[in-house]
């Protein structure tokens, strides 16, 4: 099974860190860069890239830099709100790649696929897909809720590693961002999530924070770790179920490539 740890630093990069020099349009190089950009799009509920979750059915790039991406989800009735977030994020990420001159995102085999694809092609938000039935603010609130959960789960994994490597409880609660392990995908991702939530991620900021951004105090550490493990279990179990459903539905070998045809 793929875990974020197996993705390497490229997959964790933000879209803004795509190569600065504009390369020539089209060609295999562009497709690779588009896939790298797609690898920065996360399932907001699972906190995993849509590429390692194998949600990309296909990614086609014409010589003129027109990109067509087909997305698939584990079931035809996966939540439309999360489906929309991923499709819209994918569109944004691909558009930011230098050399891309047009993007079509298509969500396939989904019961609200027509509504979502239509809104995306018109450049509209979730309310454009379901006018009068929803509110874009609700969608962002939902995303934020899951970003907080993901942050706690990632941080706690780093914290557990530090504790098992000999750090004391006092060490970890007084640690700063500068003292976090380098080249640790969970630590890197946690800092991205902090930035998304507007929490300080400067070198002198506390290494481990609560969902509200406050540092974790010594007497809170045990409960924070216990709660974080529960959140992580929920994320992992759900992610596992999604992978199994997708593999069953599309008859996928567990070890095949991340992007389809």
């Amino acid at each position, binding site marked *: 099974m793929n875990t974020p740890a197996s993705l390497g630093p490229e997959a964790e990069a933000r879209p803004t860190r795509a190569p600065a020099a504009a390369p020539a349009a089209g060609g295999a190089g562009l497709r690779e860069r588009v896939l790298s950009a797609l690898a920065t799009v996360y399932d907001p*509920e*699972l906190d995993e890239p849509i590429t390692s979750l194998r949600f990309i059915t296909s990614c086609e790039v014409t010589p003129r830099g027109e990109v067509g991406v087909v997305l698939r989800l*584990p*079931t*035809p*009735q*996966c*939540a*439309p*709100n*999360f489906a929309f977030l991923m499709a819209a994020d994918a569109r944004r990420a691909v558009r930011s790649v230098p050399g891309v001159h047009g993007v079509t995102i298509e969500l396939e085999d989904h*019961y609200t696929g027509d509504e979502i694809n239509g809104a995306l092609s018109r450049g509209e938000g979730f309310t454009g897909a*379901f006018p009068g*039935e*929803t*509110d874009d603010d*609700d969608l962002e609130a*939902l995303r934020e809720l899951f970003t907080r*959960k993901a942050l706690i789960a990632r941080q706690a994994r780093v914290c557990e590693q530090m504790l098992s490597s000999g750090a004391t409880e006092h060490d970890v609660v007084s640690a700063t961002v500068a003292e976090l392990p380098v080249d640790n995908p969970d630590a890197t991702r946690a800092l991205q999530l902090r930035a998304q939530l507007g929490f300080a991620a400067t070198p002198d900021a506390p290494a481990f924070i609560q969902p509200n951004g406050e540092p974790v105090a010594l007497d809170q550490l045990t409960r924070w770790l216990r*709660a974080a*493990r*529960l*959140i992580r*279990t*929920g*994320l*992992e*179990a*759900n992610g*596992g*179920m999604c992978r*199994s*459903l997708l593999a*069953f*539905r599309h008859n996928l070998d567990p070890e095949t490539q991340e992007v389809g045809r």
Partner: protein
Amino acid sequence: MYEKNGEKYFIVDSHLHMWSAGPDNWVKGQEQYAKGWIECFHAYMGLGPPETHWPIEKFMSYTHEDFVKDVFEDGGVDVGVFQSTYLKEWYTKGFNDAEQNAALMEKYPDKLIVNGRFDPRDGDAGLKQLEEDAKRWNLQGVKLYTAEWNNGSRGWRLDDPETQPFLDKCKDLGIKNIHVHKGPTIWPLDKDAFDPRDVDKAATDNPELNFIIEHVGLPRIEDFCFMATQEPNVYAGLSVVIGGLMFARPRFFAKVMGELLFWVGEDKMLFGSDYGIWEPKWQIDGFIDWDYPQPDHEEFSDYPRLDDAGKRKILGLNAAKLYGIQVPDGMGQPDAAAKDDAQLVEAG
């Protein structure tokens, strides 16, 4: 009675369906929803052992005979509880309404219990219907589906003010078990309708009622656990947990079980097969044998253990207590351990 290794187990399957989901029952103009719904359920069946998978045609329209064989004969289920799911916006006669379930219950009145439903958006007419249903089928429980669509509304919450009159009505009618579907996020659109936190207030305000959270709020298991640990009348319904994870993802299953045993405890967990998504036999069989894959590994070492007595509670005795089901002698009695402890304390 399920027999394994020379031992007999009293089984209450607290989550069963007898649905009708074939094209003949799809509402015109809503076919893609009706089809999508049953295909989604069918995909879940894929998480069980391959030899238990059915083709989609059978899955849409299994028969009473299939049910009797799979649940009673092969599964050894002593008593089953039907959780009615209406979905009449998509299925002409309902997906599996109380009427459909009751048709089978009437053949096996000692082995089957039918739960009803309510929807606070139906107002006074809904209250009246609940009263009629309760008398007709002697309801002890209801299954609530907060994500269900209703006249342009795409969900409701247990802490909506409109819900309380329905909970009051349940108390008047002797309905004490409130099963709430809080599971995989199949449905939420504008509302996050599978967020379990609305149960918190309802459980606090209605201590006479039991709230069984079906599918333990997956993927919101932490929201569920934090609530369940504070509310004595909140229970974990293990449908989908066992069926969806025990075979397909055994390590995750072990962790989810460990967390539930830690936060909720073996006295408040209820087996449910979610038949016809999954047959009960392989679930019961595997659960009786289940242990953490590496009990001493650091991933599992500090989770509570689950012994044979605990498994008996989860497989039947806990639900028997909630539904007033008579448990035969020698099967373990639900309160025996607790009473012994109390006597010891008094004697000491």
